């Protein structure tokens, strides 16, 4: 049970940490700004990896 709680805490910390850090790192324009390229390529890599292991 404690392991389950720890895993869930890590998940929450991960999401909150990413949300908070994004506020400082990413410029607030996802539609054509310079950060678009970085975000899009990161999504593309992760989507490719994720899809590669689909059943």
């Amino acid at each position, binding site marked *: 049970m404690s392991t389950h709680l720890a*895993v*869930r805490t890590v*998940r*929450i910390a*991960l*999401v909150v940490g*990413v*949300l908070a850090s*994004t*506020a400082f790192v*990413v410029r*607030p*324009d*996802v*539609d*054509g700004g310079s*950060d*678009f*390229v970085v*975000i*899009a*390529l*990161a*999504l*593309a*890599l*992760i*989507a*490719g*990896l*994720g*899809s*590669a*292991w*689909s*059943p």
Partner: protein
Amino acid sequence: MAGTITVTVGGGRSRRAAVLFLGANTLVSGAIGLGLVLAGRGVPREVLLFAMAASCLAYVVWFLARGSIPWLPWPPQLSATWLDRERPDATALRYGVVWGLAFATPIRAGSLVALALLIALANDPFWGSVVFAVVGFVRGLSGALAPWDTASDGPKLASRWPFFHRPTVTALDAIAMTVVLASVLQSEVSF
């Protein structure tokens, strides 16, 4: 999934078929990206932003609650009757085209949904093609490398890439969706 091409190309020894498989994957996926940009031109920006925020939020909440990323079930598209061991090139090309369609097979990565909305929002055909070509390339790479691997079957090949196994990809997917969600929220707040 690396086993698909292994079976397809007669034991995974046909390097020519592997290159055809990877090339078809990349090209068709790039065309899908281009199509998504063109299809998204008629959709209002606000609708795309709302759809992106909603899908990212749903994925992130699912990740927090269950520790996984939901995936869209889809009927099998890679029929076993397509296997033609006499013509490995044609078979690999056929499988590569279907894999390259991306959304025609089960979607395990939430990032693919966010990416489709993002490139529709950016409205740049060149970048739409490029980023979806990257998806197709990465997606087909593990299978296309089969002929160069010493392992002879799919499960063994899949285990050669332990770092990128499901939990790792799920965490990366959740992080990416969170970044997109935060970016959309900032974008909306700034207007």
